[in-house]
Structures are given as structure tokens and as C-alpha cells.
């Protein structure tokens, strides 16, 4: 088919394909989830601080009690507990983590450095 046209424009097939590919790329960009991630970290940090505060109130730093409290508060997370820099447990650590640390005096006024590393 031959058309003589003095005015107007033509969009080439290559240009159309490029435009199509461009919009496909745009639609493949995932929605931003940074806000939700921030809330998750905040919640885990709050729970970690709850543990530290309760331990500061109770002054019971026996390994058994600390680990049972940990399992009670974080039943689904891998949490590594360190007492005076010595790890009391281990678990399969994957992905990102948050840490919470506190220095607490026990009943004998010995300083206990407690650190929690919560993986999520």
C-alpha cells in the first residue's frame, strides 16, 4: 500500500516496541515497603526493651529464667542472648537483626551486661 502524505507523523514499529518495554519495566517496580519494615523493627525493639526492663525489675539473672523468658516473648524469632558478652544460646541466624543492650545491677550489686540480638 502506498500512501502519499505531506502532513502527519508516523510511529515506527521499533518506537512502539520500545515504549511498550518501557511501561512494562515501570509496572515491574515493587511498591515501597520501607514504612512497614520500620514498624516491624520498632515493635521488635519494644519487645526486647520489655525483656530488659522486666529483668531489671525482677533482678533474677539465672540462665534458665532468662532463656525461658526469651522463649515466652519471642516464640517465633531467632534471638541470641549474651550475658556479659558470653552467648547463652544459639540459633539459626538469618536476615536482618536488631540489638538491645542494657547494664543492670543484680541483687549483689554486680553489673550484668545483657545483650539481645533479634533476627527477623
Amino acid at each position, binding site marked *: *500500500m502506498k*500512501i*502519499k*502524505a505531506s502532513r*502527519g507523523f*508516523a*510511529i515506527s514499529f521499533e518506537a*512502539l516496541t520500545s*515504549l*511498550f518495554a518501557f*511501561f512494562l519495566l*515501570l*509496572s515491574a517496580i515493587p*511498591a*515501597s*515497603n520501607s*514504612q*512497614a519494615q520500620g*514498624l516491624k523493627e*520498632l*515493635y521488635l525493639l*519494644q*519487645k526486647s526493651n*520489655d*525483656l530488659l*526492663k*522486666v529483668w531489671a*525489675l*525482677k533482678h533474677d539473672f539465672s540462665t534458665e529464667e532468662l532463656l*525461658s*523468658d526469651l522463649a*515466652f*516473648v519471642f516464640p517465633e524469632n531467632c534471638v541470641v542472648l549474651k550475658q556479659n558478652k558470653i552467648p547463652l544460646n544459639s540459633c539459626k541466624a538469618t536476615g536482618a537483626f536488631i540489638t538491645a543492650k542494657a547494664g543492670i545491677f543484680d541483687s549483689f550489686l554486680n553489673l550484668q551486661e545483657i545483650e539481645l540480638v533479634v533476627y527477623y
Partner: protein
Amino acid sequence: MRITSKGSVFSIELFFAFLVCVLILAAALRSEALMLFGSSQNSKQFFLEEKTIMLADALVKNRNAEQPLAGSAFFDSEKRTVISNLVDSSLLNSAKPAKFGNVEVFEISLQRKNQRPEIILSNPLPSGNCVSVKRFVVLQETSEKAIVGVIACEN
């Protein structure tokens, strides 16, 4: 086909090109609309989660005798201070249902260590979005460790 002096002839190639352009534009707009809708849903969920986390935080850190859901921490009269994460369970047990803006608290539960959770406040959960938050506390009366659970939903 030919172009006449009186008008233009819409050629088949131009027609197909126009059709493809319109389809691409429609797909782009739909993708954009879906992304914006997803963002607004994400925002709603975000604000609900944020408010529920704040409510639970206030419950374990503040004291509010008139509205226990806004604060049930123990007030030490000797030190004249509210002790965070030390919950006055008698105050918590007197909690009444409350709305905080567009978020309503539907359930408060208390789970003592090595025991089953007990429901303190309960309303039928609505069909909309709900968020559950749990905080670790000590009960002032019995010195037991416990988890306070808060479930809040959109109005």
C-alpha cells in the same frame, strides 16, 4: 486508498499504530492506578499498625485511672513515679471498650507465664483490618511475668 484534497483518509497502518498507542496508554494508566491503590491500602494498614503499637506502649508505660486502656502501669507513691512494664492488674481488669480516633480496641488479653491466655476485654471482631500487639510485663499484685495482648481494628 488515497489522500484526497477534501479530507484525509485514515490509513490502516496509522489505525493500527493508534490502536497500539491507546492499548499501551491504557496498560500504563491501569498499572499506575493499581500501584496508587496498593499504596493507599499499605498506608491504611501502616497507620492501623502504628496506632495499635502506640496504644499498647501507652498501656504498659502510662497510668490513666479514668481510661485504663490508655495506661495501666503501677504508680509508686513512695517514689512518686509510674513504673513502666509494671502493670496494675486491678486497673487493667476494669478496662472498658474505647475508641481512639478511627481505631477501636476490641480485645485485651493477659497470659501469665506457663498459663493459658485469659481474656480481660472482648468484643466481636469486625470484618475489617485488625492488628494484634503483645507486650511483656510484670503484674504488680502477684509479681508474675505476663504478656498483655491488644487487638485493635479499624472503625
